[in-house]
């Protein structure tokens, strides 16, 4: 064979040996086991630890919240959707593997990217889902932000873990009470609450013109013991549900009277400024929009003060009120009471 041919063939053969040798040497051992890919990568991908843990993981420590949440309408929104992924919460981050291969770098970097938090800007968070927007199906509860509550935090009225605000179930029956029967039964209430439902004592609330559903639920609270008062507890025990409905219907129709405030005008003005938060439930002028939430306008000042203090101390329990009043000072309470007592109740 001519020499140049031999050399050419040797060159080709050397190239072939080097190529095949390199392929065998550099190809990962697990390549080709399952198919044309590196088999070990499947196990590596599957080995990454999940970062979202699910609501059941939160339940272990946060059982009260979990119970509240799972019974409410927000049970379709998992804890981590609003609070952030749990990851290794409450433990720290896992160690970073020393092997700096791409897959490990990506997998371990995940743990740097999240943190659990109690959302601060609720308007921003809640409106992600609840802002009225073309394209959102009608079954999704949506609000026009400016017309709903403006810039007020959503949590003022809504418990984020069970946000549905329900009017008390008594509403239908309370609205349909017998006024005449109520007038008769109200005779014994007059001693404290006034003959026409306008109380003469700052410590006892006026009932004239009060929201009927609120009155019924108040009587019910005294009856069940949810609310305690040395006089009212006994009084309420003697009243049936029908009695309560009749009384509520009677008092709701009475004409209220504004109790003048003895406080100086600057106090009243300060109270008015602070009352803007209260307006979303109790109405702009203290006349509430919902039969379950009481009117405040024209109410006895002393009663308003003691009510707010009772909510603040936890002696009177209401989820919404508790959150709202917990940071009120005595001065705030005094001013708010002064404002509402002097507000026109017509």
């Amino acid at each position, binding site marked *: *064979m001519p020499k140049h*041919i031999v050399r050419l*063939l040797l060159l*080709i053969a050397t190239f*072939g040996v080097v190529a*095949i040798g390199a*392929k*065998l040497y550099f190809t*990962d051992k697990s*390549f*080709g*086991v*399952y*198919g*044309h*890919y*590196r*088999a070990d*990568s*499947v*196990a590596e*991908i*599957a*080995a*990454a*630890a*999940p*970062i*979202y843990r*699910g609501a059941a993981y939160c339940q272990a420590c946060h059982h009260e919240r979990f119970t509240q949440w799972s019974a409410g309408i927000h049970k*379709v*929104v*998992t804890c*981590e*959707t609003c609070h*952030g*992924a749990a990851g290794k919460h409450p433990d720290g981050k896992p160690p970073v593997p020393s092997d700096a*291969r*791409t*897959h490990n*770098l*990506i*997998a371990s*970097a*995940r743990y740097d*990217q*999240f943190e659990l938090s109690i959302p601060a800007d609720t308007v*921003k968070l809640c409106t*992600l*889902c609840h*802002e*009225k*927007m*073309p*394209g*959102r*199906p009608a079954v*999704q509860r949506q609000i026009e932000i400016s017309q709903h509550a403006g810039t007020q935090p959503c949590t003022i009225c809504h418990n984020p873990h069970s946000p549905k605000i329900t009017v008390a179930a008594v509403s239908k029956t309370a609205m349909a009470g017998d006024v005449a029967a109520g007038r008769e039964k109200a005779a014994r209430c007059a001693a404290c609450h006034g003959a026409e439902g306008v109380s003469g004592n700052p410590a006892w609330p006026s009932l004239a013109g009060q929201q009927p559903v609120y009155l019924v639920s108040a009587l019910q609270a005294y009856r069940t013991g949810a609310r305690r008062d040395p006089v009212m507890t006994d009084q309420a025990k003697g009243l049936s549900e029908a009695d309560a409905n009749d009384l509520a219907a009677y008092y709701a129709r009475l004409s209220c009277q504004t109790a003048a405030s003895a406080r100086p005008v600057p106090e009243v003005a300060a109270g008015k400024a602070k009352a803007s938060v209260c307006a979303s439930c109790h109405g702009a002028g203290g006349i509430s929009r919902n039969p379950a939430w009481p009117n405040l306008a024209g109410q006895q000042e002393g009663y308003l003060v003691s009510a707010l203090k009772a909510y603040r101390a936890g002696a009177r329990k209401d989820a919404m009120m508790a959150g709202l009043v917990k940071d009120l000072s005595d001065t705030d309470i005094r001013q708010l009471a002064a404002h509402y007592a002097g507000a026109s109740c017509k």
Partner: protein
Amino acid sequence: MNKHKSSRRRFMRLIASTFVYAGMAISATGLLGRRGAAAARQLSPAPGYDWTKHRWGFGVDATRCIGCLRCVEACKTENGVARDAHHFRTWVERYVYLEGEKKPRVDSQQDPGNIAASGSEKEYRFDNRYQDAKVEKAFFVPKLCNQCENPPCVQVCPVGATFRTPDGVVLIDHDYCIGCQYCVQACPYGVRLFNHAHGVTDKCTWCYHRITRGLQPACVEVCPTGARIFGDQNDPESPISKFIRENRVRVLKPEMGTSPNVFYVGLDKEVM
């Protein structure tokens, strides 16, 4: 004269036999790959998980999506995707038909207006630009990797860095990927993205590390309206099997021949 002729013949015979023996040698090494199918039947990649027993499927109910983008956020957290709006494994498109217009206006979370509305590069939100407009029809469509039965991305990968598992998920081996992005080009749905930080391609894996543990993908976990459905198509009582049975479903771009495994309800003529 004779000498030349016979040496040419000898040469031709030599070449021919070289090809024959070389061919035999090469196919001998190729036999290593043929272990594949048999091996898959016996071995399992993750402990306690048998990938021959599952056939994963995904459903999207576009009539329920409210465009809250919690899925986009959850996916990024779960999978370490770059936080800016232009890198994503899953996304949501908004289609709005204004009165008098024949074509819809389409945007997603990476539209600059939406990025501005979200407040930061790491947050995602659809702005409300159509709130005062006369909207005839509008809806949201979430999208993600279709984990095709016949994936073009797997076909074009030059190094075998992307592949389809027997349980129906197309995965990427980040250590083998050379970052040529041929697969990004090949995907007809645009679900593959490039991870600039590491120079490799990335895509939705249906949270393979979660589904092999019996969990759901992160996007399905956080969706508040049930627009995303996931399950095992081998189990007739799984959410996805019921979804396919109880709804008129269709896939995206069926004409591409990819046989996707994400089934949609509530699409419109303009949704590609």
